[in-house]
């Protein structure tokens, strides 16, 4: 599965970079993260709960960050498996500064998915991945806005799904994500 896209976050690049390199904050923002441990500054293990179509499952895995070039780029390797299948692959994240203290996040990835999750959900995998990414960016945007005000945004699956929908609907009118 190949996936790529871009999202705009309401914070300067340095703040986005800081967030994207803080595993504890990220773990709160990624939908479905259930457990999270730091192995080394660049390597993490954890479990994440994901449902695709009829195939719902918990996946445990390892994430490794490589080619870190502050404050603009890193490459991330993932290797996870669960009873419903496995996923292995990599992704890249690139941060581009924009006007009005905003940052454009360009991402792309190539992930090999197998097992029942692939067999039943392959038509939906890409959609689910995009939705999860969308939820993540909605959560990240809320987090960044809140920290600019010196507060902490509330996070939660339903709340972030709502934020995701609001952003999605807004993007329909503004023509950008």
């Amino acid at each position: 599965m190949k996936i790529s896209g871009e999202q705009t976050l309401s914070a300067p690049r340095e703040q986005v970079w800081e967030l994207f390199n803080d595993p504890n904050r990220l773990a709160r923002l990624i939908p479905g993260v259930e457990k999270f441990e730091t192995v080394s500054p660049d390597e993490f293990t954890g479990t994440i709960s994901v449902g695709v179509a009829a195939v719902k499952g918990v996946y445990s895995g390892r994430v490794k960050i490589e080619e870190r070039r502050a404050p603009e780029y890193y490459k991330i390797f993932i290797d996870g498996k669960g009873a419903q299948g496995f996923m292995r692959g990599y992704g890249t994240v690139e941060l581009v500064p924009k006007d009005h203290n905003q940052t454009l996040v360009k991402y792309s990835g190539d992930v090999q998915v197998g097992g029942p999750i692939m067999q039943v959900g392959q038509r939906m995998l890409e959609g689910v991945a995009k939705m999860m990414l969308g939820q993540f960016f909605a959560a990240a945007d809320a987090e960044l806005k809140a920290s600019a005000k010196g507060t902490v945004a509330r996070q939660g699956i339903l709340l972030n799904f709502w934020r995701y929908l609001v952003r999605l609907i807004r993007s329909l009118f503004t023509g950008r994500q």
Partner: protein
Amino acid sequence: MAALPKFIGERVRRREDPRLITGTGTYVDDIKLPGMLHAAVMRSPYAHAKINSVDLSRARNHPGVIMALSGEDIGDKIGSLPCVAPAQHVPVHPVLARGKVRFVGEPVAIVVAENPYVARDAIDLINVEFDPLPAVVDVEKALESGAPLVHEEFGTNLVTRAEVTSPGFEKAMAEAQRTLKFRLINQRLTPTMMEPRAVLANWERGYKQLTLWSSTQIPHLLRSQLADMLKLPENKIRVIAPEVGGGFGAKLNVYPEEALCAYLSMELNRPVKWIETRRENMAATTHGRDHVTYVEVGFKNDGTITAIKAKFFCDMGAYLHLLTPAIPGFTGLMATGCYKIAGLSFEQNLVFTNKMATDAYRGAGRPEATYLIERTVDMVAAELGMDPAEVRRKNFIPKDAFPYTTPVGLQFDSGNYEAALDKALEMVGYQKLRQEQAEAAKKGRYIGIGLSTYVEICGIGPSALLPPKLKGGGWESATIRIEPDCKVTVLTGTSPHGQGEETTFAQIAADAFGVDVDDVTVIHGDTAVVQYGIGTFGSRTTALGGTAVLMAAQKLQDKMKKIASHMMEVPPEQLIFTNRTIALASDPSKSIPLQKVVEAAYGYKQPIPGVEPGLDANAFYEPSGCTFPFGAHVCVVEVDPETGVVKVLRYVAVDDCGKIINPLLVDGQIQGGIAQGLGQALYEETVYDENGQLVTASLMDYAVPKATMVPRFELANTVTPTHINPLGVKGVGEAGTIGSTPAVVNAVIDALKPFGIRHLDMPLKPEKIWRAIQQAKQTMKG
């Protein structure tokens, strides 16, 4: 009482249907035994991976789980799954993977629990450490050096290479004035029978006897193979195939779950059931077809085809199932079709890949052969600008040439190919249709007419033609008993899974004894009740099993005539069976009720010299040759150039399966067969991605044709009997599938002719056609 009719040749309704359509038949899953446990199988998510460890501890500790086993736990306690067909490299095929997995869906561990839901839940608690390996998916790349090896011990992915060249091939090719070369893909298909596989095993400790219910086409052959795998005597295993909801060849096999349930029942002294899910069925029940073929055809300017050369790459998958490497042989041998082509040369490369094994699927090698030759004939017609019907006529084996020996030595029993084509063309109104096609073209409508004239091979055959390691040959068996109440019991060694021989065999027996079809009961599929038999596959049932019924009936007739002769004081050779009596042939009013003869045989109060008591006879029929049914199919389609959607406007099929026992059942076989063949032409395709992941793993992604996608069929028959068996029948179970696929493809390509398109590979999905049209438009502009 009114005289009883003769039943052979009548449209007798299927006697199986009332129970099947009212849900009162018994399938394996309907059987519930006291104390029964349920098994679930953990399968590989990887196409190719090393197994580092299998941790079953959490599954074993799960409440309700009785036992969980890995391949290492089984070890050598269950022997390798069998492949009886000869091949250079036959790998060990463990029931649960050991050391390595080689395809997505390969069984890795099995769990037995108090109910199927717990068993299924426990599967998720198994932790297997896999070390993924690169997978080999493409059948041609699998033979390149450096390709990952499915079985390292062989040092190659080549299973076997077979080369056959007919005498005089070079000369025949040299006589050609023109040649054409092209590549054809006969895509992988998923058989998709309505009832997935199902197994129930019950070991009775006190009797040291195993009863195994399985949704199989071959109860006796399965028993023999299980006896080997489990090291049990054959007379301590009873295999029962109750109602079987379709098989299409995929249940002509021996599967891991059959041996595993048997083993687990023996270990636990409790019945163990396993019912395949649809997803398992799509991943881990044998697939069909999957050939890439390079064809070279030599022909003359008048359309005469002189020689055919073919190079096959046949995808066997990761393991060899019961007959896997035998199936492509039929493709090569039948590649000249119903034509008098002087030279045939072919090379077949059978190849391991990281996919489910292929094996027999409705037609088993002959659909591939028919597709090859029927596409070839149309290519020749297109190249020469000739009518495809004319090219066929030019090359047909003439009707007075039978028995005909093909360039590679097959003996065709009988045939009249031109008569079938004439009838089909007349039914469809061919000349008028061609005019209508031309008219429509002027209006921007793309109508296509596709022909397919096929011949196939059935009732195989003399036992010497079957694989030497197969226990059992090409024969078939029957026992007939006339019970004390004058009712007739037929025990057949064939094992129906939808074919309806409870009806056809009753017709044969009823006519033999002059009784009503409802006086006859046909029993099948139970090795403790029925004498050894071979099973139902390869359109063999009527030609072989039906003949065995007739032979057993004749033996009983002889005995009953002796008894009647004694009672009536007339010579036995002057007697006939009619209307529930044995009568004098010259004067049927002089008769004795059948019931009286039966009473004399069982009561035996007055001994009859030279006649034993009882009425029971049994016959084993070994055929002297194979039968070769044939036919002509015409498909008319319209292609929408805006969307690429194919609409089938008409479908005419004229099939010749020799004499017909029951025209209703022949029609049913042809209709189902055409639907399946059309499925291959337009919709069906088993897809693995480049990593060996099965993409078409559910019926959401594997497109079996639905009723709305299948046209109304216009069916007819010609009747050219065979001399091979006394019934004169040839076989019809696969004919529809064999004839239809090329007819549909030829029609679509014919419709696309104005775009200069000569060939597209199946399935002819709208997207593929649309792209081809767009590309052709670009080319035309340029």
